[in-house]
Every structure is written in structure tokens, then in C-alpha cells.
């Protein structure tokens, strides 16, 4: 019996040893292979759905499409104040209704075909026709071929934002000839998405090497790209959660980590890694429902709103949000034309807050404050901000109940205008202040806060003036509109979080941009 047990133990030991040998046979090696030669690994927390530019409108989709597709216009680096020529140059008519685009040099798709005006017309019309996420970018715009070198974009109403819209990677120019052979049309019946998720058809610096919407996208250089050749012959954009990105970049398994927050980047600026700090273009804002049935005489009370604004200690909010974060004066982000500095309407003044609260007739009613608890904005949690605000309002005598929920359900209720108050964020669709006029009374965002058309004539007039302003008059018009919003509107611009990119110290340049986050081809 003893002998048999020894045999049994020996057999198990052999089995266990075999297991150990097998599991260890290919060793670790720590590195995932990045960083050698001319390959670059970039970690990103994916929200990717498609690489078809006509359908993509997510952050990761923009990163992917910026690398693959050229657009008619572009921005230089992170400067979004002046559109620049890419495939075409532009001239705007005095009434801002007509934009004439002219071919700017020669450009070639990855199969060697030259980019033509027909490709431009097809690509822009396709975005409009397929009714995808980005189709609104060209709402009300008629695209016409004028000649073999020119395209005219005509808008029924003045559209001074159009040059700022055209650099969006969703408006990337496709090889129409190839696309038509694979189900592509500039009508509703287009079915080229699956093809574009396998083979890119652009004239940008890179082309798709492999594409997996859940795990990674691999790029290789477009041999016919006419711009500055990218520094890396292979770029891997891989889907990695924030905390893992930190370890990956520290271990040298990746060279760029895009989704770390203020806490996670602590200690990474030095040694093998460095931190690039910036300010996010996302504005996190508060809203208070103006619908009397939902506001219950509280959130739709002007004095109550004044108390709310003045009882927020914005400096503490900035501390919580980390370095690089900033307090926007209005809803337009600080890096866009037309943005304003904070003023007395959104400064901390507890005694003024208490006085306004007393004037409002508030008698201790509890306000329900909603926010998503399963997403972050540049790593900043809504929960953190909501708890801080609750505590600050309590000091002023305002009772708030926190109502967290998944973003899918909170957003749905918010869009239906049924929530009393909360915190949400707005990311730029394009870097122009006109993208923010939707917060005005009767507009899509205004209605979410129960702010109906005609509810505030001053703000509506200011919004109309901003929308119709042209040239140099646009900046003061948008500033006036935001000041009017701050004076009586239901929205409180709270914070633009800090934005951090951690890189290996071998990386010398990572140009960030609020429209496409990062230009992979410009990383050096």
C-alpha cells in the first residue's frame, strides 16, 4: 500500500511538473513585442465600432480613420483655430453660404490611384446618404462638382463652421472606383462597411494591415502617401483598459498610453516614461430641469440656480480633477475660438449663495442629482465630482440625493428630459462654437433640461446673433451668448478635465488634437 501511494504521488508529481513545464515552456519575456525596430504600440481603451469613415464617429474610430484617410481640409497639429488645406484648399463666400474647394497638389490612394474630384464628391455625398452617426456634419450642405479640380459646397443658411467641420476624419476621402466594386454607393443602400473594415481605401499615411474591433488594429504605411512619411513601419493600436495601459507602458510593452487619469499618471514622469499633460476638450457641465413639473419650483427657480452656481468651490473641483484641468467660463471649451473666462456668475461665494437660496424660497426640498457611474471622461469619474458637489451644496443648505446609474439608462432619461438635475459632458463634434448652440432654449440639449423655445428671449436672441455672425464678429457674438447662458440658463459649466498621455521616453512627439485625439502618423 505504501509503495502504491508513493507511485501515485510520483505520478501526480510528474503530472504537475509536466504542467509547469508546459505552461512555462515559451517563457514570458515581458515585452509584447512592441518597440523593436520601427514598430509602435499604442494602448487605447476602445470604443471602436467601425473604420468606415462614413459611419465612424467614436474616439477610436477617429484615431483609426485619421491614420488612413486624408480629408479635404485639416488642422496643423493641435491648433484648431485655423483650417488648413489637405487634399483641397478653400475659399469661403462673403455670405458664408458657399465654400469652393480646389485640389491642392496630387494625392494617391494606397493602390496607387490618384485622388480625384469625383472621389471627393462621392465620399461626401455618401456620408450624407447612409444616415450614419456623422451624417449630421453635412446637414443642409449640397455637394457639387464644379470642374475636374473644384468642388462647391453650398448651404441654404450661412455655415461659417463648415471649414472647421471638413477636417473631421469621418469625412475622409475614399477611392470611389474601388468602393463601387464592393457595394459602395452614395445612396442609402450602401453596404461597403464590411469591406472597409477589411481593406482601407484612403490616401492617408497608413493603410489597414489587420482590423479587430475588439482587440487591435494594425497599420502599415501607404506606399503612395505624398505627405511626410510616418516614422513607424508598423503601428499597433490595441484595446487595453486604463490600469493595464499604465503597466504596459511602464514595462515597455507599449510606447503610448492614451487613457490614463491624473491619479494613474503619478510617478510616471521620469525614468522610462514621460507624461504629456493637456486639457481635455470635453466640458463636464451640470444641468437643472426648467420644466415646472419636474423642477418642482426648485430647479426651475432662478435664485436657486444662482445659489447652486455660487456654492460650488470650483478650485476644489479642479484639485479633484487633477493637473491640466481647467474651469471653462462657458460651455465652449477653452481651446476653441469664442470661449470665455470664468466670471462672477460662476465663482465661489458662499454668503451670496446662501442669500440667493433664502430669496428663492427653498425650504429644504431634496433635489435628485443623476450621473453615469460606469464611464469616465479622460479618467475622471462622475461619482467623484457628484460627491464633492453634494458636500459643497450641503454647506450652503441645499439637500441633494445622488442618483447614479449606467450611462445607457441615465442618458436615455436625460434625452427624454425626465431627470431633475445631474452632471453630463459634451465633446466637440467639430472645433467651432456653433456646435454648442444646441444648449439654447428649444434646441436639442436645451430641451433635455426642459428649457423650451421662448423660455428665455435674451438667450435666444444671443444664440441667433451668434449663429448668424460672420468673420471677426463671431467671437464676440459667441462670448455674449455664453454670458447670457450663465446669467439665466440651466447649465453650469463645471470642468474640463486634464488630459494625459504617457509615452516611453524614446518617443519625442505625440501631437494631440481635440478632433482626432492623436495623429498616429505624426508620432515620432
Amino acid at each position, binding site marked *: 500500500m505504501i509503495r502504491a501511494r508513493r507511485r501515485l504521488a510520483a505520478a501526480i508529481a510528474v*503530472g504537475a511538473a509536466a504542467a509547469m513545464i508546459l505552461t512555462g515552456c*515559451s517563457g514570458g519575456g*515581458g515585452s509584447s513585442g512592441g518597440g523593436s525596430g520601427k514598430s509602435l504600440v499604442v494602448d487605447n481603451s476602445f470604443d471602436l465600432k467601425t473604420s468606415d469613415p462614413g459611419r465612424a464617429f467614436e474616439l477610436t474610430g477617429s484615431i483609426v480613420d485619421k491614420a488612413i484617410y486624408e480629408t479635404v481640409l485639416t488642422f496643423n497639429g493641435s491648433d484648431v483655430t485655423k483650417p488648413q488645406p489637405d487634399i483641397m484648399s478653400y475659399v469661403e463666400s462673403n455670405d458664408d453660404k458657399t465654400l469652393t474647394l480646389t485640389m491642392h497638389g496630387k494625392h494617391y490612394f494606397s493602390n496607387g490611384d490618384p485622388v480625384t474630384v469625383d472621389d471627393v464628391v462621392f465620399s461626401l455625398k455618401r456620408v450624407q446618404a447612409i444616415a450614419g452617426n456623422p451624417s449630421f456634419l453635412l446637414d443642409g450642405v449640397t455637394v457639387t462638382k464644379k470642374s475636374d479640380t473644384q468642388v462647391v459646397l453650398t448651404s441654404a443658411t450661412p455655415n461659417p463652421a463648415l471649414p472647421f467641420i471638413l477636417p473631421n476624419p469621418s469625412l475622409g476621402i475614399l477611392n470611389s472606383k474601388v468602393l463601387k466594386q464592393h457595394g459602395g454607393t452614395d445612396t442609402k443602400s450602401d453596404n461597403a462597411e464590411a469591406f472597409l473594415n477589411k481593406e482601407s481605401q484612403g490616401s492617408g499615411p497608413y493603410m489597414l494591415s489587420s482590423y479587430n474591433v*475588439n482587440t487591435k488594429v494594425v497599420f502599415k504605411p501607404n506606399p503612395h502617401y505624398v505627405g511626410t512619411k510616418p516614422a513607424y513601419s508598423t503601428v499597433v493600436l490595441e484595446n487595453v483598459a486604463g490600469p493595464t495601459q499604465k503597466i504596459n507602458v511602464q514595462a515597455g510593452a507599449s510606447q503610448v498610453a492614451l487613457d490614463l487619469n491624473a491619479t494613474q499618471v503619478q510617478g510616471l514622469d521620469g525614468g522610462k516614461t514621460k507624461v504629456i499633460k493637456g486639457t481635455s476638450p470635453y466640458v463636464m457641465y451640470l444641468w437643472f430641469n426648467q420644466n415646472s413639473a419636474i423642477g418642482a419650483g426648485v430647479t426651475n427657480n432662478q435664485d436657486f440656480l444662482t445659489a447652486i452656481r455660487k456654492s460650488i468651490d470650483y478650485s476644489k473641483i479642479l484639485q479633484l480633477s487633477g493637473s491640466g484641468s481647467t474651469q471653462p467660463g462657458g460651455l465652449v471649451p477653452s481651446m476653441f475660438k469664442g470661449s470665455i473666462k470664468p466670471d462672477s456668475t460662476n465663482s465661489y461665494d458662499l454668503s451670496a449663495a446662501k442669500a440667493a437660496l433664502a430669496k428663492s424660497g427653498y425650504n429644504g426640498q431634496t433635489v435628485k442629482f443623476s450621473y453615469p457611474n460606469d464611464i469616465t471622461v479622460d479618467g475622471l469619474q462622475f461619482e467623484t465630482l457628484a460627491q464633492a458637489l453634494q458636500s459643497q451644496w450641503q454647506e450652503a443648505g441645499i439637500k441633494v440625493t445622488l442618483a447614479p446609474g449606467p450611462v445607457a439608462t441615465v442618458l436615455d432619461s436625460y434625452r427624454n428630459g425626465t431627470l431633475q438635475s445631474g452632471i453630463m459632458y459634451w465633446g466637440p463634434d467639430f472645433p467651432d462654437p456653433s456646435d454648442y448652440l444646441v444648449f439654447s432654449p428649444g434646441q436639442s440639449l436645451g430641451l433635455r433640461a426642459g428649457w423650451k423655445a421662448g423660455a428665455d428671449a435674451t438667450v435666444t436672441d444671443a444664440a441667433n446673433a451668434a449663429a448668424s455672425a460672420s468673420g471677426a464678429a463671431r467671437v464676440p457674438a459667441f462670448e455674449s451668448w455664453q454670458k447670457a447662458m450663465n446669467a439665466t440658463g440651466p447649465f453650469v459649466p463645471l470642468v474640463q478635465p486634464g488630459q494625459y498621455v504617457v509615452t516611453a521616453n524614446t518617443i519625442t512627439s505625440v501631437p494631440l488634437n481635440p478632433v482626432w485625439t492623436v495623429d498616429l502618423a505624426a508620432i515620432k
Partner: protein
Amino acid sequence: MTSLPSSSEVEQAVGVSRAGRRSHPLLRYLGIRFGISVLLLWGVTVITFVLANLVPANPAAAALGEKAASDPKVVQAFNEAHGFDKPVVVQYFIYLGNLLRGNLGTSTQTHNPVTEDLGVAFPATIELALFVIVFSIIIGLGLGLIAALRHNRFSDQIIRVFSLIGISIPTFWLAVAFFFVFFYLLGWAPGTGRLSPAATAPPHVTGMYTVDSLLAGQWDTFGDALSHLILPGAVLTLYTVGLLVRFTRSGVLDVLSQDYVKAARAKGLPAHTVVFRYILRGSLLPILTIVGLAFGSLLSGTVLTEQVFNWGGIGQYAYKAATTLDLPAIMGVGLIVGVVYIAINFVIDVVYGFIDPRVRVR
């Protein structure tokens, strides 16, 4: 809610005639089990569909961007493309009809057919699960047997503590700890993903990179894929081994006191014959059940472990589907998880029938 069908209804449903009743007991047993499995599968389709559609949120709003969700034209196009514009009952029958043709719909997030997504995600999870279950059986059964045979001795105590630790430590915590220690600090194993970022996946045959790379003769890729299994595999193995040790130990202890084991020993049979032919076989049924359930649990998605190691398996797919209200994907995952458990239970039932004749004549 309908009551469960009687056994005669089930038999009628699967076409077991009176003549069939006189067929071989094992065949009759298999027929009944198969019929029950089909009914359960239908139940799964109903439950996944109803639960997915009970969520109080709009899938179009969740899938579309802020601006697009405000555009009725875009929302309508989205709803038409995914069939969300039809009444829920109609949607169910369309879903069922498509299901019978092997079509699980199109993911609102990845824009791929759900079957295509699952065709990538499920083999990833199968590969990990097979890796884990093989090592878990070898180690778990061995340690469980040793613990039982050395009941209350020092080695038994050590193994019990080991199994308790394996079961008690939260898997997600262990995953993070292993990732940090063995990838970052020690560099013994690669961190995330199924292959190194620059590596190219082998030609698709099974979807399991280790198998496909072997079939293609790509030894470097095989080594790379195998090395990526180490950390997530070790995390899940530790838990599964803990589970198996406990069940094996208690199963063997039960059998050790049985008369037939005493008789075998009294007859002077060699110890290894007693252990393998009498003790282990006698305790196999409960062990088999727990192996099956553990395998099912692994196959149905080890969400947090896959998330930490960015495994790209069904757990990660399910997580993404749930957090983005991707109804076709949620239903697809629900269905496949249901199929996995039903299939495993069916297989266990069948194996029971083979191992223990008493089961099939009950």
C-alpha cells in the same frame, strides 16, 4: 409562465413512441435527455429575448452619438436596420426565425453579424477554458486524491489550505496581482492579449491560436500564443483546482468507507488497483459534475479575468455588449451560454448513463 412538461409530454415531443419505450433503456434515456435539452434551449431564447428587451433604455440612443441620436432620420435608419421599429412580439418571431437559419442578428456596436463576433470570441474562450480545465483536472484530481488518502495528515492540511485559498481569493484581484507581479515586476510572462501586438494571427481554422498555429506549422506563433495563456490560465486554474480538490477529496472520502473498497483491500488487491479501479471510479460521478460545471463556467465567460488580460473572449464581449446595450449581442451571448450549460449537462447525463447503469433505468 408555463409549468414544466410532464415526462410523457417530453417523450411525445421528441417522438418517443410506445414501440420506442420498449427500445434499449440507454437510447430511451438519451432521447428523453435530448428532448429536455431542446425545450430548455427554447426557454433560453425566450428568457434572453425578454430580459434584453426589458431594459428601460433605448438601444438607438445607446449606440448612436449625441448628435446622431437627436436626428430622427438617423435614429429611424438605425431602428430599421436592426428591426427595432417593429413590435416586440414580431421582433421575437423574427429573431427565432433568424435563429433557426443560424443568424443571430447584427451587433449595434461592432456592426458585425453576432455569429461572426462570437466566431472570434468563443474560440478564444474555449482555448483558455481547455487549457485551464486540463491542468485543473490533472492537478485538482491528484491533490484531492492525495488529501483524501492522507486524511487529516499534514499533507492533507496543506492541500486543504491551498484549495481554500484558491476558492476564496477573488479572481479579479488575483488576475491583477498576477499581471503586476509576473508580467510587470518579474517579466516571466506576457501581459495582455492572445498574441504579442506585432504578431500575426495564424490562418483561421478553429479560431484557437495554439491549435491553428500548430496546424499551419507556425512554431513561433504557437510559442507566443501559448505564453499568452500562462497568466490568465494560471489565475483561472488556481480557482478551478481549489474547487476540484474539495470535491475530489470529499468524494473519495465517502467511497473509502464503502464496503466494496474494504472488500477489495481485504482481498489483497494491489493498492494502485484499489485506488484507480475502485476508489476513483466510485467517486467519479460527483467529480464529473463539478468538472462539467467548472468547464461551463469557464466557457460562459470569465468576464473579469478576460477584461484584465484583454483576452478578447466571450466574457469580454458580453461585458461590452451589456454596457453598451447591444441587444443582439446580449441575446447572442445569453444563447451561447445557455447552449453551453445545456450541452454540458446533456453530456454529463449521458456519461452518467454510461458510467452508472442505475441512472438510465431510474
